[in-house]
């Protein structure tokens, strides 16, 4: 044995990404629930933001004065909170499902922070995917909703830069929310005592 080597286990972000990717790919059904949850919440959000943009574009071009009401933003906030709670719930179940695996990983040398990292990588993936899907859905429904009020061609006149920044903003929001929702389950997983985790029968 090499005594000079530092007595430190290693687990890089790349390792976590590789492993997290496998978890999502091979347990797709559970991941899909989270992705759907974030996509629905986010599509509602993007619908509102893009509608707002399209209405103001229409107003600028001399169209009717239609606007997104402020209570609708409250509904968006509620929708996002609901999707966060849904993800936290689904991830907690995922932690219970993987009790023994987490215990095993700890036996093989995983530190608490490695377990947290693994769950966060998964939620990052889910948030990113959910965000992309949610944006596309939101864009489509915003175009349909405003189309009847202000004409479907209005989307062509909307400032491109604003659309891009809404895209970046929504996908980042989705990813951040997904990761925030996973913090508590990930922390719970990392605190597992390997002895108890290995004895656990699902």
């Amino acid at each position, binding site marked *: 044995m090499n005594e000079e080597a530092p*007595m430190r286990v290693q687990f890089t972000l790349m390792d976590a990404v590789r492993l997290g990717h496998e978890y999502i790919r091979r*347990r797709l059904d559970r991941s899909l629930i989270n992705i759907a949850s974030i996509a629905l919440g986010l599509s509602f959000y993007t619908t509102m933001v893009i509608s707002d943009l399209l209405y103001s574009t229409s107003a600028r071009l001399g169209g009717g004065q239609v606007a997104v009401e402020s209570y609708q933003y409250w509904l968006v906030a509620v929708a996002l909170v609901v999707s966060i709670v849904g993800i936290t719930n689904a991830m907690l179940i995922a932690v219970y499902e993987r009790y023994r695996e987490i215990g095993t990983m700890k*036996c093989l*040398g995983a530190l608490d922070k490695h377990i947290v990292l693994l769950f966060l990588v998964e939620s990052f993936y889910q948030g990113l995917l959910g965000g992309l899907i949610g944006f596309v859905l939101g864009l489509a429904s915003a175009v349909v909703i405003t189309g009847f009020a202000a004409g479907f061609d209005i989307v062509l006149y909307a400032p491109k830069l604003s659309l891009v920044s809404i895209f970046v903003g929504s996908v980042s929001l989705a990813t951040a929310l997904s990761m925030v929702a996973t913090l508590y389950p990930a922390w719970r997983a990392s605190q597992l005592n390997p002895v108890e985790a290995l004895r656990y029968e699902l």
Partner: protein
Amino acid sequence: MSYENVIELRDLQRYYQMGAETVKALDGVDLEIKRGEYLSIVGPSGSGKTTLFNLVGGLDKPTKGSVFIDGVDISQLDAYELAWLRCRKIGYIFQSFNLIQVLTALENVSLPTVFAGTPHDEGLKKAEKLLEQVGLGERLHHRPTELSAGQQQRVAIARALANDPAIILADEPTGNLDLNTGMEIIDLLHGLNKMRGLTLVAATHDLKMIKASDRIVWMRDGVVEKVERG
């Protein structure tokens, strides 16, 4: 540095609090295990075998007393050093295999090399070689659900060897296997013990495993009842 006794237990105690009652799972165990020795720990369920296994493996902390691995008192180690010990010095084999279900045999075996900081390709190559050694060269890309119980335990053995540990801890490794498969696993473990000079500590009920071992530690009610030469 190399100590002749790779494992030393000094007055090892582990109590559990069950409501108002204190359960003495281990009540003062002294034991020395030599490098390359094959030791069986035998006793009825509840005699403290698994507790002993967990303490030696650094998975649990003693209430009192110490576990020395290569002369180091492991209760003095911090979380990082303990993880390193589990990763590099000790290989674990369980009754219920505990393979990661979403990963293939090859990925399961290479997982410990990830934590050891081995480059990815090198870890996979090592895992492939180990799987060939345990007779699963044709099953590299099968997942645990696609393998028989005996094959799963072989994967678990290959995984335990992934970082060339000094010690293999096996908790009832044949407990979930039929007679013949169990026999094959015992032969495999025994061979590794002899050929690689690995120290093998196995908690077991299995008479065939007991017969193959160098020394047998009989436990009862948290203490060592007797020690026999195999």
